């Protein structure tokens, strides 16, 4: 009886498995046949790159309001940038749709020259009116704060386009770093654009052929692009929210390129066949910092702040959390950008001196809670190590671990926290500095942004950085690059703040 039922049971299970696999196997065979077909066709003409990003249901074609990295990656393929930050270039920026940006001697007016021969996908010429509108659009269309950078430095209401190739931008107050503001993330859109659909005229190397939020975008090479024509015929941007799922998709060959992977996953992928892992170079690394609130005790004491900075073992963080894929920070933002002060002495890991400073400040055995969340790869892990480091110098430190998405939702409360994790995307120091805590630094940064001579500006900037290094309230522990992986045969991806796929190539 027992044997019979066992045999039958096994038979049923086997039958079910066969039916299931047969049912599904058919589909997958047909599918892979399709893929192979399109792959062969593509290889002859330039190919299709399938790239996966986090994306999600909140994706939108409106780059001014797009909350995900994918939105900006897509937008930059579709709409040409006005100019881009470029630490190697003479002005610190390289020009795209714009031909040049000139600053008046009093630093009160910027003149933008528009490149001739730039066309939109509807055949019309891109003129100064379009550039002016592109700069005003973040305000007019209620763009996200990161797109509002230009309006923080320029009086956009008084901006004008005196002729077809010139835009004149008056500043709110004299600034020397206006190019950084204009070139950090501004893309060229057509005058009067209010809605962003696949049909919206665009100026970039690719045009949209299909889009479904949270699923994928298909892009085809645009024939009207003014610049170097892309090699790729098409790009498919696939939305895969989970990093593990992205890695699985790459390993199984469902996509050719993935972005935004965790350091531990990069470590695993590194050994895999046919896959290469890349991380972005400086300055394209996010600044992971831990802020001490100088308005709360005992962080009002400079010695306590210094003790905390000395207590942190940065090399251990780079090694253990990021497996070497990070840069040791020196408590000052903007590493890798031209005005970053490379002469500053690297902060040492000196627990003994830290202990001594705490004793001098009368803060031995102080209690502190570090608030952190998984807002960027390794933030929580780094916070854990910092808590350990602090315990090692006798501080009663604890970690307050928040769930994803929680850290910045209540911003005023976040600002009041005595000790918290935070990060800044790669950007130059001066225009992104928030004044209000250290009056002396505020004044120096103002000089660094507005002094007439370049030398004076640089000197003031370095002075400000020196002061921040010495007295500042941030433990700038590490700079974290973005990590991506690609299958063999993919090349030409520029790893900037977000990956730029415009000049990528694929081969079989």
């Amino acid at each position: 009886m027992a044997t019979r039922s066992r045999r039958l049971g096994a038979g049923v299970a086997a039958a079910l498995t066969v039916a299931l696999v047969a049912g599904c196997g058919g589909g997958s065979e047909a599918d892979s046949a399709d893929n192979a077909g399109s792959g062969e066709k593509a290889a002859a003409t330039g190919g299709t790159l399938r790239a996966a990003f986090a994306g999600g249901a909140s994706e939108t074609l409106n780059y001014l309001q797009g909350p995900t990295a994918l939105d900006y990656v897509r937008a930059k393929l579709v709409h040409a940038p006005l100019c881009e930050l470029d630490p190697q270039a003479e002005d610190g920026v390289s020009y795209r749709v714009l031909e040049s940006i000139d600053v008046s001697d009093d630093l009160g007016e910027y003149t933008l020259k528009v490149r001739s021969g730039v066309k939109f996908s509807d055949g019309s010429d891109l003129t100064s009116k379009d550039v002016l509108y592109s700069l005003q659009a973040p305000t007019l269309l209620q763009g996200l704060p990161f797109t509002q950078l230009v309006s923080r430095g320029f009086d956009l209401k008084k901006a004008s386009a005196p002729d077809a190739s010139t835009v004149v931008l008056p500043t709110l107050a004299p600034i020397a770093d206006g190019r950084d503001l204009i070139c950090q993330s501004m893309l060229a859109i057509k005058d009067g654009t209010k809605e962003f659909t696949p049909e919206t005229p665009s100026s970039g190397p690719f045009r949209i052929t299909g889009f479904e939020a949270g699923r994928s975008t298909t892009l085809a090479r645009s024939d009207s692009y003014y610049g170097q024509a892309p090699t790729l015929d098409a790009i498919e941007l696939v939305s895969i929210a989970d990093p593990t799922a992205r890695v699985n998709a790459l390993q199984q060959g469902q996509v050719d390129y993935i972005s935004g992977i965790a350091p531990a996953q990069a470590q695993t992928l590194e050994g895999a066949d046919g896959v290469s892992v890349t991380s972005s170079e400086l300055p394209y690394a996010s600044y992971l910092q831990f802020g001490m609130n100088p308005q709360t005790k005992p962080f009002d004491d400079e010695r306590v702040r210094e003790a905390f900075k000395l207590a942190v073992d940065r090399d251990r963080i780079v090694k253990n959390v990021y497996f070497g894929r990070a840069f040791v920070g020196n408590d000052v933002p903007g590493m890798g950008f031209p005005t970053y002060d490379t002469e500053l002495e690297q902060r040492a890991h000196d627990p003994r001196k830290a202990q001594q400073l705490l004793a001098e400040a009368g803060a031995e055995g102080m209690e502190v809670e570090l608030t952190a969340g998984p807002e960027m790869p390794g933030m929580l892990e780094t916070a854990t190590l910092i808590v350990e480091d602090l315990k090692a110098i006798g501080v009663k430190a604890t970690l307050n671990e928040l769930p994803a998405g929680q850290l910045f939702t209540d911003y005023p409360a976040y600002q009041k926290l005595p000790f918290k994790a935070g990060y800044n995307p790669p950007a130059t120091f001066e225009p992104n500095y928030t004044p209000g805590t250290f009056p002396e630094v505020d004044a120096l940064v103002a000089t660094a942004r507005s002094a007439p001579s370049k030398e004076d500006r640089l000197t003031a900037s370095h002075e400000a950085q020196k002061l921040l290094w010495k007295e500042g309230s941030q433990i700038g522990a590490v700079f974290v690059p973005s990590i991506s992986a690609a299958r063999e045969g993919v090349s030409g991806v520029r790893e900037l703040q977000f990956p730029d796929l415009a000049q990528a190539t694929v081969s079989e």
Partner: protein
Amino acid sequence: MRLLPWIAVRVAMLAVSLTVLSVLVFWATEVLPGDAVGAVSGPEATDAERAAVRVSLGLDRPAPERFLKWAGAVLRGDLGTSMVSNRDVGEILTERAGASLAVVIPAAVLILLFAGGLGIWAGLRAGSRLDRWLTGSTLALVGTPDFLIATALLLVFTLWWPVLPAVAIVPLGQSLWQHPDLIALPALALALGGFGSTMRLLRASVTQTTSTPYAEFARLNGVRGARYVRTIVTNAAGPAVHAFTIMTAGLLGGGIVVETLFNVPGLGYELARAVATRDVPAVQGLSLTLGAATLLILLAGDLAVRLLNRGKEAS
């Protein structure tokens, strides 16, 4: 004939429950620290920019006013727009419900087949080796987290024996339904994680029924084979049907781990995201839909049990 009034009362209760649910969910998102302004603004925004975002989202208005405005729009069939992406909540909902159903319906069918077949089998042969083996292995399955089941399936079907795609990537313009190969693994993962409890309940209930005098009487009267099984099952299925409906309702919003790992983000995943970003209109729309679906599935389960019992009374 008492069936129709019973259904009417249940549907009315459903409407009341949903209304209460909408108030509760709104209140809960209100009580959570922070609002969508933080999620939308990012860490670099200035205070003035934050204030502007707050006004543009309408979050500067008092909570009751916002709720009534939202409720009024819902009564007109407008679920509002997401605070984070400005997309129509109804649109997001249709997309996510589609993904959820594409995975949950096949999973529910698998559970019905596995749990039904094996539960009856084991119940009729209580104490046999198969029964003991099933009891043990289902207990292990019930105790295994979704994450492990999904990972094991990925290991087997995409690495060792690569016959299925690891991640669901649906071509534009097509629906997940057209790709059974993409549905197979997530559905199987949900089914394996969920069928244990239903099967065990059915097995226990069948075993119990076989030892009732009623069943013995049927056996003594020469009732055999399919007729005997039907007699037992119609009498034993009640508790298992309840367990099955509760579990299926749970899968609709609760399969987040499986949805995430196989990239079929459904209602539950989207709800978690909406809560994290304090996207109130999306939270409201998603939780109401999930609530309504759950109550409807439970209603269907109750109805099925009632019909089963009616059949029993009649025979």
